[in-house]
């Protein structure tokens, strides 16, 4: 984010296909909305159908605009992902984290995420990651669970936490 004249989007890379693909998904979703809403009573259907029609029209507009730009040799500049492999790691980590939280609770997946996610993208200062993970999880437990008595997802370590209270 440093302010330099070169800080603009990378030249020569285009996110044109992503633009068209996303607009197409929007149009398909809008059609599904219209179809689904049409089965509701007229009073309840009118509002979502109107929005769906509007979105479908604008989605087509965006997709067509980008297709025309491509045909004229001026597709939308800039890449969709700055670094696709790291983005994939990030998305996978998030999905794995929420799945683990659903299965075994908050504490262990959170510790693992704080240590493993930075490591997965090349951060090798393990000691710092572990300190941040432990301080962060203990702070959250101290403030939200003990001080504010707020719930955390059901945790396999809950019996031990109960004893600490």
């Amino acid at each position, binding site marked *: 984010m440093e302010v330099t004249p070169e800080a603009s989007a990378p030249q020569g890379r285009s996110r044109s296909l992503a633009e068209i693909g996303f607009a197409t998904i929007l149009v398909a979703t809008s059609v599904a909305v219209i179809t689904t809403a049409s089965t509701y009573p007229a*009073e309840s259907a009118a509002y979502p159908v109107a*929005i769906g029609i509007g979105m479908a029209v604008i989605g087509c507009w965006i997709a067509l605009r980008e297709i025309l730009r491509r045909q004229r040799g001026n597709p939308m500049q800039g890449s969709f992902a700055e670094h696709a492999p790291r983005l994939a790691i990030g998305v996978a980590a*998030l999905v794995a984290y929420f799945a683990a939280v*659903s299965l075994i609770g908050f504490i262990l997946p959170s510790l693992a995420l704080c240590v493993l996610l*930075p490591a997965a993208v090349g951060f090798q200062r393990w000691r710092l990651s572990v300190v941040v993970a432990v301080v*962060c999880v203990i702070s959250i437990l101290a403030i939200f669970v003990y001080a504010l008595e707020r719930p955390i997802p059901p945790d396999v370590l809950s019996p031990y936490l109960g004893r600490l209270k």
Partner: protein
Amino acid sequence: MIDALLHAVPLVFAPMNILAMFIGLIAGLIVGCLPGLTVVTGLAVLIPLTFGLDPMFALGMMAGMYNGGSYGGAIPAILMRVPGTPASVATVLDGYKMTQKGQAAYALQVALLSGVIGSVLSSISLILLSPPLVSFSLMFGPIEYFWLGILGLATVSSLLGDDLPKGLIACGIGLLIGAVGQDISNGTERFTFGQLDLLDGFSAIVLLTGLFAVPPVLQIVEEAVKTGMSGDKLKLHRQGSALSQWRFFTPVWIRSSIIGIIIGILPGAGGSMSSFLAYNEAKRVARNPETFGHGNPEGVAASECGNGADNAASLIPALALGIPGSGVAAVILGGLLVHGLRPGPQLFREHPDIVYGFMLQFLVTSLLLAIVGGLAATRIFGQVLRLPRIVLAPVILLFVTVGVYSVNNSLFDLWVLLGVGLIGYVLERLDYPSAPIVLGLLLGPMVESQLRLALTISGGKTTALLSTPIAVTLALLSAAILLTPAWRLWRERGKTPVVEGAAGR
């Protein structure tokens, strides 16, 4: 108004609420000074965490975070040439040059004092201008409220991005999400697909947290910055007093504050626009404009004062009419709704102590910023800049997870958070603005219900929607705002040769 303000004073100065303002300021300062995280992200993380707390405590933290985050962006802008927030980009121009000349501490002092003055004047404008706007809105019925909702949606969709169709799509997504759940008028379940969790619709708090807090996490992972700032840069020592030079800075502060307040009130503007306009104006009237960009403290003062001055002012239409003028105001509006406070005349009538207390909290946090943002404090809180940014990504996610889960004790909400976050990331990458989605979710149900009410009262006559002068005015304003981008494009094409694809990134 005076009575309500006096009633709110004990609430604002209750020890716990002062603590909340301090916590909010410090958190805002930290969020603001971390490049890649904005005030909106900070608020999106904060709001679910404050769910269930006393409203004044929660609002105090929000006010603190807004003002703290606004100044926090100046710290890396001055020390590292990296703006912490988009609004501090103009501060880089002269702030970093001052650091190169060995005047970092002085530059930070000028930025702080200017930010404080801008924020204080902005808070006073919020207190003075909101009540008259509320009195005006008392003349509104269902028809006017319908058009007011449309005006808000048109404004945010049209002005908060560079591309009107994308703004409208974002708004449509928000309106559709707002339509999920049971139709209040006849009990029809819309888009619930048999899921009990969706019967009451999507939670606004989960949606805004997913949209604004998850995409920065993915962006930090993508950038994978593995080093922090050198600790030497935080060895700051006092270098003269900006306060003692008040005669020199006063004209800049007055001009920049006026610009910031006006830009703040105007829908769709604010943030970087106010700081850049204030900077340009200071440069235009300066005796030595050529010194701007080469370490002129007036440049730092103008940018930070303009930036601070649009903070509270952007809440004037949000609090009085329920129509936010900026992305931050839209998120704060969501925060108010989470605590059962619906902005508009009803809020001023039913909870005057809270609404005036919130406005006073903006004023108090503006003043407290002078303490929390001082050099000693900057040395302490600025240490966060030494942390490699990559370790912060999971930390943000942990706080978001705890906050969102505790709203409804629901694991389903965590999956919604993830889904919305991923969609939010895609939208951000393709330059679809996120604020219209939140506004669509918040205003959609109101627009639909007021439209139905208006049509029921008029016996189904659609012409009734334009039957009052206020309704016609609001409708014309909405149309004008939606046509502005097209008109601008047409004018630009008339002036310059057409360059296809120029509207892109």
